């Protein structure tokens, strides 16, 4: 008798959410797979035409698609690596007990939650070739007028810089929290055991913050892999900045080829799922 009551309570508690998530995640996923098998045009008002796996065949022959994956990966690797190195170093800096550090840390967090579109807008202005502040600063130190957003490898670098600007503080504060959560007794035990400063760093500090670094690394990788706002605002996919999300977006909503875009989306979902599994594995481990 009690068991039925418990089941009803449970259904009330988790039912609505599961329904919602099914409707907006599971259903679209299968619809996406379905669409990828059709010629499904945004403009064409007629019924979609079944193509089988043709969309996928085209995809892997499409050098733009392959390139977009390469660009995306390059973007992810460059930005996440920079953020990790910078963020971790800065976390150590901010761990100093000097006065004012806490306020500085707080201010440095401001970029983290800024609307990515606005970040793109501002950096677009800063990198403007004719009046951008960064362009002028480079010119002022004698580097000449650099066409940041139109030169091939430079444009991607600008995206990386904008991403680094926005997310380094998060990496910093996460590593900082991990550093703070190392119990003081570990260092005290280290002192009593006779460890030198260097030994403390290598044998206590770094091993203990490693899990946090791995988590934030995967999180950042997933996040920057699906970023579209920066490209949208700053380059619109030009000058070697056509990332996978942008290519999918433009195929679907600029070219109007939903079926082909859906096929790419399916590939992307598989890609992200692999990354996510790493992360979920980590979280599962942390919860155990």
């Amino acid at each position, binding site marked *: 008798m009690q068991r039925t009551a*418990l089941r009803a309570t449970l259904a009330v508690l988790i039912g609505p959410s599961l329904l919602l998530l099914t409707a907006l995640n599971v259903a*679209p996923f299968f619809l*996406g797979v379905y669409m990828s098998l059709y010629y499904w045009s945004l403009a064409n008002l007629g019924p979609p035409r079944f193509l089988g796996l043709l969309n996928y065949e085209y995809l892997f022959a499409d050098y733009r698609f392959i390139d977009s994956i390469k660009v995306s990966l390059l973007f992810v690797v460059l930005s996440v690596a920079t953020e990790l190195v910078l963020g971790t170093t*800065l976390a150590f800096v901010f761990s100093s007990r000097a006065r004012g550090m806490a306020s500085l840390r707080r201010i440095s967090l401001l*970029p983290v939650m800024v*609307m990515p579109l606005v970040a793109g807008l501002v950096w677009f202005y800063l990198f403007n070739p004719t009046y951008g502040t960064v362009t002028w600063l480079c010119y002022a130190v004698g580097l000449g007028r650099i066409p940041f957003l139109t030169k091939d490898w430079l444009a991607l670098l600008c995206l990386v810089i904008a991403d680094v600007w926005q997310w380094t503080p998060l990496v910093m504060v996460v590593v900082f929290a991990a550093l703070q959560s190392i119990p003081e007794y570990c260092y005290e035990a280290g002192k009593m055991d006779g460890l030198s400063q260097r030994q403390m760093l290598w044998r206590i500090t770094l091993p203990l913050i490693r899990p946090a670094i791995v988590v934030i690394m995967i999180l950042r990788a997933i996040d920057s892999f699906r970023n579209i706002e920066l490209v949208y605002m700053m380059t619109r996919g030009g000058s070697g900045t056509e990332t996978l999300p942008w290519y999918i977006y433009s195929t679907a909503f600029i070219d109007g080829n939903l079926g082909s875009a859906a096929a790419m989306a*399916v590939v992307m979902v598989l890609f992200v799922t692999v990354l996510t599994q790493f992360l979920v594995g980590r*979280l599962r481990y942390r919860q155990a």
Partner: protein
Amino acid sequence: MREATIPPPASRHRSVGHWRPLRTGGLLAVAVAFVGWCVFPFYIMITTALKTDPQIFAWPPVWLFHPVLRNMQNAFFVVGGRSALFFLMNSIIVTAVSTILAVLLGSMTAYGLARFHFPGDRNIAFFILSTRFAPPVAFVIPTYVLVERVGLLDTRLALIIVYTAANVSFVTWILRGFFVDIPKEIEEAALVDGYRHIEIFWRVALPLIKPGVITTGILCAVFSWNEFLYAMILTQSRASTLPVYLSQFSGSTTLVWDQYMAVGVIAVLPVLLAAWWLEKHLVRGMTFGAVR
């Protein structure tokens, strides 16, 4: 033998004290430089919003000028048929409603998953979490088709539903951690005291994790507020939110920097306040509870 291990202590101690201020000064300098780099774009955004066109397009940049508020007014009252105010209203409504719904549904689910054990409960929890990481650009295509079929294109309801779903997974995952941290005995006490599970959820468990609920709610609101892709695709005009307004800049031919920067300031301001306020809890939220 024991005496041999003890050197005269004084000199060593002093040397540490001598270097400490220098070291601290160096670290502070690095920290200040980093903060400068973080704040610089904000400075440019705000000043641009307060400049006149010639000042904006000046080479070299104008550093000293008389701020004008005209751009703000233009952005909100003058431009064409529709002012940014309209987009702002949409943003506020969509954000508020989706946040409340997500926190409500998510906290219920989180409680269910934290307190009731049934076969596969953890798998459900991880399924819910992994939906959060789905790339929006991949899901927006079928979602667009679905929303179009049910006739909700260009409605605030569509955005509310999509954002609620996205946030429910987040809320569920984070609050589940909070609920698990509540000592089981407190809820068992309520059970002995005569309360049913749903009542315990409302009257004991939820009040106990209020800080967590507020934090999570704010993070949800920030997500809904900032979300661009779905808003862009699922709305055309009537239900468009601020990011959609801002995105028009990218395609437009005239560079009205001042107005867009002004709207940007408006779009960023509430979020900055949230970030400032959340500082302590940000890490737990942003890392899905992996780092506290």
